[in-house]
Structures are given as structure tokens and as C-alpha cells.
């Protein structure tokens, strides 16, 4: 019993958004297992996993930026159009102006920054709601893409395609696996162990008891196991395929932005602005600068996503990025962010995006048409958020939390003072 309590406290305890995230990870695992069974093992096959990552890396990159925008209390509807606009300009720059592809990538990011500065200016300095600014941007840059490309497709050269369809190189002894992918897996496993050790150290420095050793070990074992499984799968695909380059880009961005949002003053300011902008302002946070930054950053990431997509499909077209904004926004909300801002994490949004991606992929493998896939995705988004809102209104924090409730009778720590707590104007959060 006490072990169960430990497990529950350490895995599901803490903040509500943590609990929500663990809930999402379980949902993800459940969906993967479900489709693995329904598709007779197709879901977890190497080539399918690789395709899954390649097809969704750009949505997940958008989800990173979107998370920050939503946490700051805004929304960005223009990302699909911005991606298409940057994509067509980059394609043109290489085919018509003969820009070498590395320079073209820098050029693409600069376009993103310029568009972001434009949208950020209206949102932060003029005070036009982001919904309106980016709705305008959605039309503006979609039109811009079709104007520049004459509504036709523009192909891109070989070298550039690597960022969308390339893989880690083959080298070293013939192990029957892709060695680079194996090394990446090893590095990831070491990082997980190192992080757990660091976390224990930090807990001790805060005079708090770290989680029991066996929990730490269990947690590490699960993570390392998942990493090893994934590394072997990615390394054992068709010859010439392995972990995709776009996946590497995504990984780097996830790590960098997670660090930024969690561990830097700049990141914390975003949460402060979204949580209570007036309080943040009176604490010395430069409101306009934060709002400008999140909007600009979003467009830079949208430009990057657009380039990866163009590279993968080998050409830029007039319909690129249609509906991406909705996928990215769905990923963020499934991942536990609050509509009113102030709550949400990068990792949660990535998990949310993966849930949608696996769902999409699994249904397609089963031969379900896009019409029904859309219906199912819509219902999943609604249900995921509705269950959480319902649980919150019942005073429970998560499904898992409520399942574990019978075991926590003797746990008397929370709520300190319910009468006062309940008087608070509870943030109308979508999250738990």
C-alpha cells in the first residue's frame, strides 16, 4: 500500500498540469497499444515510425511556438500561411536566384522573423488582439504565397531536401543497425539517467526528501527502455533510412525551448504575462517585449516548419500548410494548456501532438477515410479537454488522480483552507 502511495505521489502528484501530462502519456501509450493490435503490428514497424516522425515533425515544431503563444494568452492562426509563404520564397530563392541551400535556410528564417516582427508589432505595441492580427496574417500570407508562386508549385534542389527527408548517415562497423541512431539512443539514455540524478540532488538541496530510490530507478528503467526500443526500431529500418533529420531538428528545439520556458527569466515572464498581465507588469516584466517575442518566435518556427515540409515534398505549393494552425492548437490544448493562458508545457504539447499524430496514422493504416479521421480527431480533442474540465469542476485534478483517490485517505496535506481557496476566481482554464 505504501509503495502504491509513493508511486502515485511521485508520478501523479505535484501540480495539476503534471498530473494532466502523465494522464496524456498514458493516453498516448494506450493509443499506441490499441493501434498496434488493431493494425496487426503495423504501427510500431520501423518504416511506419519513421514516416510518422517525418510527417509530423513540422506540426510538432509549430506546437512548440504555439504553446508559448497560448501561455502568454494569445493565439496564432497564421502559422500555416506563414509556413507556405516562407516555403515559396525559399524555393524561389534557390531555383531562380541560385541561392545555395544553407543560405536559403537562413533567408527563410529571416523571412519568418520579419513576418513575426510585423505581427508582433500589431499585437504588442498597437494592442490589436492576436486573434485578429493573425487572422489577417492568415489571409495575407496565403495570398502572398499564391501571388509569388502564381498558384503553382516550385521544386527545390537535392541538398535542401535533406532537412525534410534526410536521415542520420551510415558509418562504422556493420552491426545490422544504423550506428548513428544507436549512438543517439545511447546519448539520450545517459541524459535521462543524468537528469534523474540531478533532480535528486536538487530535491536534497531543497531539504526535501527525494522520491524513494526504487521509484527513481523504475522511472529511469521505463524511460531507458522506451528509448532503447525506439532507437532499435529507428536503426533497423530499410537500408538508407534511420532517424530522420527533421526529427533531430525537432529534438533540439524541444530541448532548447523546454529549457528556455522552464529555467530562464525570459521563459518565466511568458507564464507571468499569461497568468496575470497586470501583476506581471507591476513586477517589472516588460509586457510589450514579451508579447512581441512570442509572436515573432512563432513565425520563425512557422517558417522553419514550412521549409521542412517543402523539403520533404520536394516542392513548394499553393496549398502548403493548410489547416496546420488547427493541428498545432489542438496539440497544445490536448497537452494541458489553459485557454486563458499561464498554464502549459512544451513536453505536454509534444505529447498532445503525438496523440493526434498516432491517431491519424493508425486510422489511416486501418484504411479509415479522411472524412471519418477528421470526425474522430474532432471528438478526441473535445473529449480530452471536456473530461479535464469536468474533473476540475468536481474538484478532482485528473482522471488518474481520481482513480487513485481511494488510496489516499491518510494523506491529509491538501487543501490548506478550502473556504478561502474556493472564493478565488478560478481561472477559466481548459487544463486540469
Amino acid at each position, binding site marked *: 500500500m505504501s509503495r502504491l502511495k509513493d508511486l502515485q505521489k511521485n508520478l501523479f502528484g*505535484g*501540480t495539476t498540469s503534471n498530473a494532466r501530462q502523465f494522464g496524456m502519456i498514458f493516453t498516448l501509450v494506450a493509443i499506441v497499444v490499441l493501434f498496434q493490435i488493431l493494425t496487426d503490428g503495423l504501427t510500431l514497424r520501423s518504416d511506419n515510425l519513421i514516416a510518422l516522425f517525418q510527417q509530423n515533425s513540422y506540426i510538432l515544431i509549430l506546437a512548440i511556438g504555439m504553446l508559448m503563444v497560448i501561455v502568454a494568452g494569445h493565439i496564432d492562426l497564421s502559422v500555416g500561411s506563414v509556413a507556405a509563404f516562407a516555403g515559396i520564397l525559399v524555393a524561389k530563392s534557390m531555383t531562380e536566384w541560385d541561392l545555395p541551400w544553407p543560405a536559403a535556410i537562413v533567408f527563410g528564417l529571416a523571412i519568418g522573423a520579419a513576418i513575426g516582427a510585423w505581427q508582433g508589432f500589431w499585437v504588442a505595441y498597437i494592442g490589436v488582439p492576436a486573434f485578429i492580427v493573425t487572422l489577417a496574417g492568415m489571409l495575407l500570407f496565403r495570398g502572398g504565397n499564391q501571388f509569388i508562386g502564381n498558384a503553382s508549385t516550385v521544386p527545390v534542389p537535392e541538398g535542401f531536401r535533406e532537412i525534410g527527408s534526410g536521415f542520420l548517415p551510415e558509418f562504422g562497423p556493420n552491426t545490422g543497425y544504423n550506428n548513428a541512431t544507436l549512438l543517439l539512443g545511447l546519448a539520450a539514455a545517459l541524459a535521462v539517467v543524468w537528469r534523474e540524478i540531478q533532480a535528486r540532488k*536538487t530535491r536534497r*538541496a*531543497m*531539504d*526535501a526528501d527525494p522520491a524513494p530510490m526504487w521509484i527513481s530507478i523504475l522511472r529511469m528503467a521505463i524511460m531507458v527502455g522506451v528509448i532503447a526500443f525506439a532507437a532499435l526500431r529507428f536503426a533497423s529500418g530499410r537500408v538508407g533510412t534511420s532517424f530522420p533529420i527533421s526529427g533531430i531538428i525537432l529534438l533540439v528545439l524541444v530541448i532548447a525551448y523546454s529549457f528556455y520556458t522552464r*529555467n*530562464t*527569466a*525570459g521563459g*518565466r*515572464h511568458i*507564464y*507571468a504575462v499569461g*497568468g*496575470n498581465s*497586470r*501583476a*506581471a*507588469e*507591476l*513586477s*517589472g*516584466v*516588460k509586457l510589450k517585449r514579451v508579447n512581441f517575442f512570442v509572436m515573432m518566435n512563432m513565425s520563425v518556427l512557422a517558417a522553419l516548419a514550412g521549409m521542412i515540409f517543402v523539403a520533404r515534398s520536394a516542392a513548394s505549393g499553393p496549398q502548403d500548410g493548410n489547416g496546420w494552425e488547427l493541428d498545432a492548437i489542438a496539440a497544445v490544448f490536448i497537452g494541458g494548456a489553459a485557454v486563458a493562458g*499561464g*498554464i502549459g508545457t512544451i513536453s505536454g504539447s509534444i505529447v498532445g501532438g503525438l496523440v493526434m499524430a498516432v491517431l491519424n496514422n493508425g486510422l489511416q493504416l486501418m484504411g479509415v477515410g479522411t472524412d471519418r479521421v477528421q470526425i474522430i480527431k474532432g471528438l478526441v480533442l473535445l473529449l480530452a479537454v471536456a473530461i479535464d474540465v469536468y474533473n476540475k469542476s468536481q*474538484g478532482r485534478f485528473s482522471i488518474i488522480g481520481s482513480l487513485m483517490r481511494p488510496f489516499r485517505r491518510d*494523506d*491529509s*496535506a*491538501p*487543501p*490548506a*483552507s*478550502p*473556504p*478561502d*481557496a474556493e*472564493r*478565488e*476566481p*478560478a*481561472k477559466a482554464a481548459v487544463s486540469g
Partner: protein
Amino acid sequence: MSDVPILLEMRSITKEFPGVKALSDVNLVVRAGEIHAICGENGAGKSTLMKVLSGVYPHGTYDGKIVYQGSESKFSDIRASENAGIVIIHQELALIPGMSIAENIFLGNEPRKRGAIDWKAANRMALDLMARVGLEEDPDTLIKDIGVGKQQLVEIAKAFAKDVKLLILDEPTAALNEADSKHLLDLLRGFRSRGITSIMISHKLNEIEAIADQITILRDGRTVETLDVKADGVDEDRIVRGMVGRELSSRFPDHTPKIGDVFFEVRNWNVRHPISAERQVCKNESFVVRRGEIVGFAGLMGAGRTELAMSVFGRSYGVFESGTIIKDGKEIVLKSVADAIDNGLAYVSEDRKAIGLNLLDDIKTSTVAAKLSKISHHGVLNEVEEYQAAESYRKELRTKAPTVDESVSKLSGGNQQKVVLAKWMFTDPDLLILDEPTRGIDVGAKYEIYGIIQRLADQGKGVIVISSELPELIGLCDRIYTVFEGAITGEIARADATPETLMKQMTSTKKMATR
């Protein structure tokens, strides 16, 4: 009074939340036509008890019995209790700012004629109800265009629209100035003479002493006692003793000020209203603060004290027009809040929930929020230093919370205020501006906050206290400025400060003799 019929009896009410027993075996007897006050520190269970009574916590979620008008009542929701004539007016007013007085009064209860709202009847009935509460306004006036005192009257008019028999007021005067408070209390007396029963929750003991017939005191979720004000000769000290369970010899800690030289000075400060530029909110105001000194700012609501403080604090209010700030002999220009913080200013706002704290944060994030640079190296936050800083302030200020990971939204008002104070102490300010630092805080926590303010002054900091409670200013401050309509009208030393002298200068434009 025992011959008067009992209107309401709550018998051994027990209400549990997961992990916490908010009420245990609470009894309350209210007789018809009396004003019954409920006193207790924050977290004593006052609000919970009222929520049980009004059906917010429906029958079945608590143990015990409610006998109302002679029969047992089992309210399933607020509507059920309202139908029975029990109306509760919360501390945070539930009015829609963009709607008119009449629309608010009849919200959810609109008079209809053939399915459509009958505005003629509504306005006529609204005027009638407004007359009963002494509110002289056009019923078409929008809520946002009237002061908070009048808004309170609209709430009461709204209660009358529902044919109230038992009116419950939760901290009705917390946000009101003295004049509005007095009007409200007179109104309650008027209701009493017309046989309407009121239950009033308040921290303002002088008001309770003045108006209540019976006082029930709660402590830690239990009934301590019920006092008959006239028969028992109850005074404030008697109430305090019941609330805290011990004698509180003085409302203010003993303190010998150690006042140094003038180090902060504002000269000829002029600020205009942010929207209507023709309105001047600060009219050529000048003041000084000495090291180790607690300086009070007295004034009626709307006198422009908060506006003055916020405009000095990095121009966070209004449109700056002219004026100079001199600190330690040098002129400083504070164009933003960040400038103000860097120059050693701190401003603790009057509304900690709306603009003082991010209620999504926990204690440790809140504590360091105004000076993240202090716990970061090369832009990277150090979690351990953050924790240690928050923990040391939690211990120093005796904030009641299991850990600094607790969400600030779960803390009581007094403890939230301590977190806000910690947040600004963490910035190492030279001058702290505290705007209504004890609003909505119970007696025990107030005493602690006063102690903290005095300690800050003793460290050589200057402290400005803005307060609407004159006894607080007189008890705490070494020197008091009075403000009226955006101008400083007087400067009074502690020895000369009485409520009468302050009130006189707070309400007259004539500048009295200054030193």
C-alpha cells in the same frame, strides 16, 4: 431578546473537505429582525457556514440541520435558498459592469410581458427599489460609472427584488470609504426597524460593535460563543478575545522609531488621467520620506492616493506630466516599473488578487517574481536558490503553508499578503509603498503585518502606508499626509493625529499649516 421568534437555526453543522474539517458542530441561532454578526479570523469557517446556509453546498454534502421559519430546510442550490428569501451578498460584487443599474437589479429575474422584457416596468420597479436603499441615480446608468459604494447598494436593491427575508452580507464595507460605510450601516439599521433580518460578516470590529445585536464567534471551524451586545456589554476587545482565544493587549506592536534623514523626495508631481486627459489626478503634490520612517497617506476613496503611488512607481498609472523624484540627493527618472525596482522602490498594490499576485503561481515563484535576476546566473534560474529564498521568507514572515510549493490561490488573505510582502522584500527596496496592506485581513494577521512593517522601517528603509482605516494610520505611522482630490492638503505628526483632525483635512481643499 429570547421572546423574539427564532427565524433561523443551524444545528451542529459539520462540513468536511478532503483532508480538512472546515466546520465542526457549528450552531447558529438568528432571531427575527436582528442584525447578527459573525466574527472570526480568516479560515475560521465564516464563509463556509454561509455557503452551507445559502445552498452553495447543497443539502447532503454537510451534516447537521437547518431550521428556517420553523421547518427544516434542505436547499439544493442557491436558487432554492433565494426562493425562501435568503439572499447572500458576496464580498466580490456580482454585478456586470457594462450593464445598467436596472438591468443588473433584475438580472435573471426580469419582469416580462408576453415573453419580452418589460423595460418600463423594470425601470419603475428599479426606481422603487433604489429608493428603499437610498440610491439616487438614473436606473439607466452603467454599473462601471458608479462608485463601489453605490454598487454595493445596487446589490442590496437586487436582493430586495427577490423579496428578501434574511440578508447575508459578507464583508460589506471592506471596499467602502468611511462615508459610504456609514450610509450602509444606517441602511441596515433601517432594515432592522422594518423587520428584515441581517447576518453580517465583517472584520471591522468597530462597526460590529456599533450595529450588531448578537455576535456569534467562530474559531477553527467551531462556535466559540454567541454574545448579546447590549446585555453582555460587548466591546471590541471582548470580540478580539473570542476570535483569537487570548487577550490581544494592543492592536499595534510596541515600536520606537529610529528616524534618519530625508532620502526620498517627490516634488511638484503632476499626472493626468490615462483616458480623460483633462482630468488631473495628481495636482502638484510634494512629499518627503526619511529613512526608518513610516509615512501614512490618508484620504477618502478616490482622493488619488493609489494613483500618486503608482505614478511614482515607474509611471504605472496615468499620463506623466511633470515632477521630479530625488533619492539620496540625486534626481532619478523612473520611466518603467523595471526602473523603479532597480532604483530600490517597491509597490504592494491594494488589490493583491487582481494585480498583486499571479494566482496560478506557487509561493516560491511568487516570492522571486519581481527580481528574477537575483536567483539567476547568465539568465538561467537556479531552482535551489529560489527555494531557499522563498523558504527563508516563509519562516521569517511566518506564512502559514505546508511548503513553498503551495499555490498562492489556496492561502488565506493574510498569508497571501505575506507572500506579496516577501516578493517585494526580496527586491531589497529602500522605499516600500504599501497600498491598503491589511485590507480583508483578520486581526491576528494584521498585528503580524504591522510588526513586519516596523521591522522594515527599523532596517533603515522608508515605508509609505496608504490606508482607509484611520486608526491604522494613527497607530502605525510616524507622520501622515492627507490627500483630497489629487492634492496633498496636510501633514500631521503622529502626536497630533486624531481621527477628527485627519478627517477634517481629508475633506477640505484648504491647505492647513504645514511644518
